[in-house]
Structure formats: C-alpha cells, structure tokens
C-alpha cells in the first residue's frame, strides 16, 4: 500500500525544471524549506501538481507525503487537478465590490454562460471569485496567470475574452516588459 515507486512512477520533470529544482534546494537552508518553490516549479511546468508529483516531491525533499498534501491544500494557488487554459480570478472583496465587482462577475457569467466556480465545456475558461488582490485603488480587477487586469468595465472584459479566444491576450495592466 505504501509503495513510493509505483505511486510516483508516471511523474517526471523536464531537465530544465530539474535543474531549477536542484538550484532552489541548494539555496534554501534545508530541503524541507524548499517545498514551496519546488511546488511552483512543478506547477509552472505541468499546470498543476498531480498526486504522482506529490509522491515524487515528498521523496526527493524527504518530507512526509501528508506534509506535502497539507501545503498543497492549504494555499489557494496550488492546484492538484488540471485547470482550464485561462483561469479568470475576479476579486470580490470589499473595495472591488464597492466599485462594481458584482456587475463584472455577472457580466462574465453571462458572456461565458457559466456560474462563478465553474469552467466552460471547451476547457478554455474557468471563472473563480477570489479575495483581495492588492489592486483596491484600481478595481474591479482580475488575475490571469502572473498578471492583473484592472479598472475593469464590461467593455474591457469583452475585449479581454475576445483576445483570449484568439490566443493573443490583451496586454495586462501589470505588464512592465516595455520598461526593460
């Protein structure tokens, strides 16, 4: 029943990710303390952290599997199941609420024909409500990947959805790449 080899058998990381993992483990004071960046490396590559990955990582970092599961289930950003291509996370906390988050959520629900917490059948969009994203002065806002889209209006939402469907996402408001 407790067979690590079998349970982690299917899991493998790319050479690049393995190298990043080794570098992180070397930098952190203990193997155990490298767990969070290690989970990010796995999730960044695979889109989520599969159970076989949990087994593999637990063995590699020499921590109990139960500990890894505690961490995966405690933090909202770690996902143990495959996600849709675009996970749209709309803030529904107080400042965004005051500035119209509910309307934006309603608009998204209508445009995507799903309710908050659901995903579209084509696997393209997942709609989630989240807590404060630190964009309170520029709300309503949503998070997509590493970036935020802020000062949302229904029109901006429509433009974003169209751009995502075309595979050419609108430039996020937090994109600083042009600054160098």
């Amino acid at each position, binding site marked *: 029943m407790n067979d690590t080899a079998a349970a982690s058998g299917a899991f493998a990381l790319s050479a690049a990710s393995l190298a990043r993992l080794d570098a992180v483990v070397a*930098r*952190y*004071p*203990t193997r*155990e*303390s*490298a*767990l*969070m*960046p290690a*989970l*990010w490396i796995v999730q960044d590559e695979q889109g989520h952290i599969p159970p076989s990955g949990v087994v593999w990582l637990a063995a590699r*970092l020499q*921590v109990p599997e139960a*500990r890894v599961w*505690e*961490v995966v289930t*405690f*933090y*909202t*950003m*770690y996902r143990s199941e495959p996600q849709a291509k675009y996970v749209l996370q709309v803030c*529904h*906390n*107080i*400042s965004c*609420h*005051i*500035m119209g988050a509910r309307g934006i959520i309603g608009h998204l629900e209508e445009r995507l024909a799903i309710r908050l917490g659901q995903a579209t059948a084509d696997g393209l969009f997942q709609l989630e409500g*989240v*807590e*404060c*994203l*630190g*964009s*309170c*002065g*520029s*709300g309503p806002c949503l*998070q997509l*990947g*590493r*970036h*935020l889209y802020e000062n949302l209006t229904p029109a901006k939402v429509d433009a974003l959805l169209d751009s995502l469907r075309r595979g050419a996402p609108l430039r*996020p408001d*937090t*994109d*600083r790449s042009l*600054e160098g």
Partner: protein
Amino acid sequence: MTRDDCRILSARFGRSDGHRLAVYEAEGGYTALRRALKEMTPLAVREEVKTAGLRGRGGAGFPTGVKWGFVPAEAQTVYFMVNADESEPGTFKDRWIMDYDPHAMIEGSIIASYAVRAGLCFIYIRGEFGWLVDRVQTAVDEAYRAGYLGRNILGSGFDLEMIVHKGAGAYICGEETGLINSIEGRKGQPSIKPPFPAVQGFLKQPTIVNNVETIAAVPPILREGAAAYRRFGTEKSPGTKLWSVSGPVRRPGVHEIPLGLPFREFFAQDLGGMADGEELKAVIVGGSSVPILTADEILACNLDYESLAAAGTMLGSGGMIVIPRRCDMVELIQVLMHFYWDESCGQCTPCREGTGWLHRIVRRLRAGEGTIADLDLLDKVCNGMMGLTICPLSDAAVMPMRSFLTKFRNEFAALARRPEESGPRSRWARTTNEVIG
C-alpha cells in the same frame, strides 16, 4: 511643506524607470548602505532607527528599532524577513513600492539585516503578485552584480544572501510567525508565543520580520538622519505614511502624507473628495481589520496612530476604504465575513468555527431568514472569538463585525423578519398549517 517635500517613500512612484539600479543610485540610492556598513556599528544603526521613531507599517505599529533590539546578543544565526505578503483588504502600498522602487526595499533590507546581524534575508512576496516576484528578483540580481549583496559587501566584511520567496495564496502568511512557518515549507499557520520569533523563529533561530513600507523607510532615515525624519509627523507618530485609498473618491491610489494630517484636509486636497454623484458614508481606515468610522467620526480625526486609537479604531496598514452612501452595510460586512472565513488558517477553534458562523448568520440575514435575535447572536459569537486565539485574525474579523453592527444597527435590524412572519420552523409544521389552515 508641500506634498513633494514628503516624498520619502514615493519619490519614484508612477515612473517607468525608477526600478532600475542606475536610476536609484543616481538619486542617492545605496549611500545609506555605504554609511551604515562603513561608518556605523549594527548597534548604531538600531539606535538611529529607534531615535527616528519608525513604527511598523504592516499593521501593528510596533517601534522598529526596539524590535530589532530583541535579538539576543549571543545569537549566532539570525534571519531577516521582509513581509511582502500584502493581503489586507484595501491595502496596496507595498505593491507600489515593489513595482516602482524595489531597490528601496532591497537597500533597507540589507541595512536591517546588518543591524540585526542576519546572514540570510528572505523577501516573502504573495503569490498573486506574480509579476512583482519577477521584478524584485531582477532588482536583487542587479544588487548582487553591483556588490550590494553576497560576500564582503562593499568591503565591510558583512555577508548577506537574499532569497525571493513566492507565496501561494494565504492571507494568514502576513502574520509574522505564519510567514516564518510558510518559508519553512509548512502551512502558514501562526505559532504559539512564547517563544517569540526574535528569540526562536525560522528553524528555531532568532528571526526579525518587517513590512515592506517599514523597511523602505530605513535608507532615507540612514541617509538624512533620524532628526530629518522626525520633521514629519507627530511626536508619537513620526515620519510619513503611504495611504492606500480605494472607493469612489476622485483620486484613489497610494498617497504619501506626513502622519498627523487631518483627514478632512487629506480627503479634500489629496483625494479630491468623492467622485460625482457619491456621498461619504463611512471609512475603514486601516485595512478591513479595524473598526469602521462613520463620516462624522472620521472627519474629526487626524491620520496618525494616537488620534485614530482615540477614535476607537486603529491606523493598521493604512488601507483606507471609502464607503459611499449607496452601499448596503450588511452586504459589505457579508463580503468581509466571507473573507475571514476563507482565510482563517483553522488551527484555533474560536476562529475556525466563529468566522464560519459569523458569515453564515450574516448570509442568512441577507437572505431574509434571520431574526432580531440573530443580531444578539452575532455579538455573542464575537465574544467567543475576541482575545482568545493564537493570532489576531479572530480579532480582525470581530472588529469590523462589531463596529458595523453597532454603528449601522438599523440596516441589520431592517433585514430581520418580524416575529409574526417567522411561523413554525419545521417544514412539516408549515405543511400542517397549510393543510389544516
């Protein structure tokens, strides 16, 4: 003194190049570090910051120089951590610092690490600030290349490594022992105290945790001196504060003002008052975890620690949420109660169960299924949550809940069913009533 004179923390806000090392250095960056490493002992640095009266800007307001002094003198391994987990609703000032002025945070962290004799510094950035993790890492790399990090910094003999640690979505990691446990590779659940982190923290070693805004004030203090810093603010609240302002004012965003400025003046001049068609109803000044103030109450306050405390609230993180008259206060408290229920780490029973209970009662009220007795129940639940837990998240839920209930009771009462509308509680009894008549 104009607002431009107060740009201690916000000198590079809004610019497209202020994050670059070259720009930062050209504008005086890293001179404070030079002064600290070459001319001062760690004790002298601590004393300077203590004299300046800098207080923690994350929410607790504890004197920073005093906190730095809690590390035992004989400690061999010390850790320094920057709390960039900014997740307090209404607060986004640390985000702006990291976005526009990451080197201010980095330089302040190096000086602080020197002051507490830390050899490893972690910058804990909430996972949702993904783009900032990249940005700060770039700045850290610049600092390494310039010799401000690593071994024998500026030939001083002081070594410091800096690691940017990405969070993964948990407000409770903003509590300093929760942050420490998170970096240890565990759930970010706060630890029982004693022991206190300055004595036994990360990996059981002395650890100091400071907020981003706090640490970004350290280079200016070291560069211009404590006396210069004290020119701003009040006796008990020296210096400037970054206010994160949200809600329908004309100019939301991050504003830097001297502590002690009357809210009236700040509201009219800096914020431009309410946007068209909006009326001021109430303000939560310190991030959501503090008691709310009505419009009348806040208009009589100065924006500093002591004045706000006297008004029955707290300066907290300075996350100022401006609430317009059109807002339903019960709806807003439901939003907040959902937040605390969502974010409770779950360790302590009063918080774990109480946050959920508060949310469910408010939700029932709003659905028209609550009674007037539920208002007393809310108060009772708050009693079972306040001052009884490992960390203040439980209190953080109670303070808005209690103050909303006290100051806007009429809105809650209006939602309660009248007794004659209640009827029998069981579905069977209701059906019986319908059949028998």
